[in-house]
């Protein structure tokens, strides 16, 4: 057992070393063919298939994800193997249109090999080209600034001073911030509303309720409205409307059990 494990780990090492060399299943297949010193045009399918599948199993043992492409080629190999095991009928043998079941795969391997070889040449060309160096393009500024005639240092200084002054102003503006204290509170407004309603015998039109004397700040209106909502919520004031878009009547219901804020 121990010996077997040892052997396994050795093949595993061998594999990890090899694996990054393979670009895909065709690459692996070519590697196996070369290793077995086979003629690419006369692949011993049975032998190659078992070696190929062994590789896939070892990849599995290494918990590597086997890409689907590897499985496709495995299936192709098995398909070819089974076809080649079938006896060829005499008539078919003589017929010219007999096709070697390996043909498609061989063609694929041959052209793959062809481009692999030429890719090596590309690599040499790439390296040679990298020996030639050029400079960065001179950056072409779209806008050119020209100083008009008669410009003196004085003018530039003044312009600079102006610029700084403007910056100063901006800075000051930034610092200024108003802090306005809350001038109206909901509590006060509640008292106001209750007082006004009582003055009008407990019932008032909604719009009349907000018909303040003279100029009114938004803050007052908003606070007042919030106060009214609060009153409605606790049931001290009720709102009713007899018809759509008609006037809303606000009625004072007196003190409820729950206190408004």
């Amino acid at each position, binding site marked *: 057992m121990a010996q077997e494990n040892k052997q396994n780990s050795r093949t595993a090492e061998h594999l990890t070393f090899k694996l990054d060399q393979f*670009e*895909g*299943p*065709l*690459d692996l297949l070519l590697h196996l063919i070369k290793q077995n010193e086979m003629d690419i*045009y*006369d692949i*011993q*399918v*049975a032998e190659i298939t078992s070696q190929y599948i062994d590789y896939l199993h070892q990849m599995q043992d290494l918990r590597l994800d086997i*890409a689907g*492409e590897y499985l496709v*080629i495995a299936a192709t190999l098995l398909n070819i193997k089974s076809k*080649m*095991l079938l006896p*060829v009928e005499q008539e078919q*043998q003589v017929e010219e249109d*007999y*096709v*070697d079941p390996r*043909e498609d795969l*061989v063609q*694929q391997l*041959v*052209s*793959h090999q*062809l*481009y*692999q*070889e*030429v*890719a*090596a*040449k*590309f*690599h040499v*060309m*790439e*390296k*040679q*080209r*990298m*020996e*030639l*160096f*050029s*400079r*960065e*393009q*001179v950056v072409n500024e779209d806008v050119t600034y020209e100083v008009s005639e008669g410009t003196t240092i004085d003018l530039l200084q003044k312009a600079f001073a102006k610029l700084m002054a403007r910056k100063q102003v901006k800075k000051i503006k930034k610092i200024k911030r108003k802090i306005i204290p809350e001038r109206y509170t909901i509590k006060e407004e509640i008292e106001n509303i209750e007082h006004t309603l009582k003055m009008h015998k407990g019932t008032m039109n909604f719009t009349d309720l907000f018909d303040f004397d003279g100029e009114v700040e938004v803050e007052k209106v908003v606070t007042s409205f919030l106060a009214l909502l609060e009153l409605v919520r606790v049931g001290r004031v009720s709102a009713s409307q007899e018809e759509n878009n008609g006037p809303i009547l606000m009625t004072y219901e007196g003190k409820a059990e729950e206190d408004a804020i």
Partner: protein
Amino acid sequence: MLSNQAKIESLLFISGNEGITLTELSQITGILKPALHEQLDKLADKYKQDRSSSLQLIHAEERYKLVTKPALAELVKKYLNSNNITELTGAALETLAIIAYKQPITRIGVDEIRGVQSSSMIQRLQLLELIKENGRLDAPGRPILYVTTDKFLDYFGLESLDQLPELDEEKQEDEEMDLMTLFEQTTGSTEDEEEE
């Protein structure tokens, strides 16, 4: 008055690694293309003959560029002090080779030869501007066709696609002929396998 050659040289110098096209040269200098060709050839020759000149004129299609002579590479590298020159991976080179020889070609066409999915590789090569899309194949799904760019030529130091190394297809054809005779022998090899 400066010579036309000096004018051309100045523009080549300024354009640097971007290079400059014949059309641009013609528009800026007002020299017609045939005369430009002549001057560029002369300039290239001048650099070549002059052993005290460090420069060399190269071009990919119609884009010309000034570079240092290859013999100076070691010296330049010593100055640049950079060992981290990134080269293309084997897979990228193979994909490029397929596209270069088979262009215009679809992604599926590349996949078939490589036996693996090439979409991400094609995307990478497109980002590197070594290949570009060039229309679509008139077939179901109208797949995109890919071709190599002038930048591809420059990257490999090629002047045009004619300079691609010869693809050994003749050898392939010969071997295809061999295949024919092999077909006839197939029965023999099947018997061998049956014995196993």
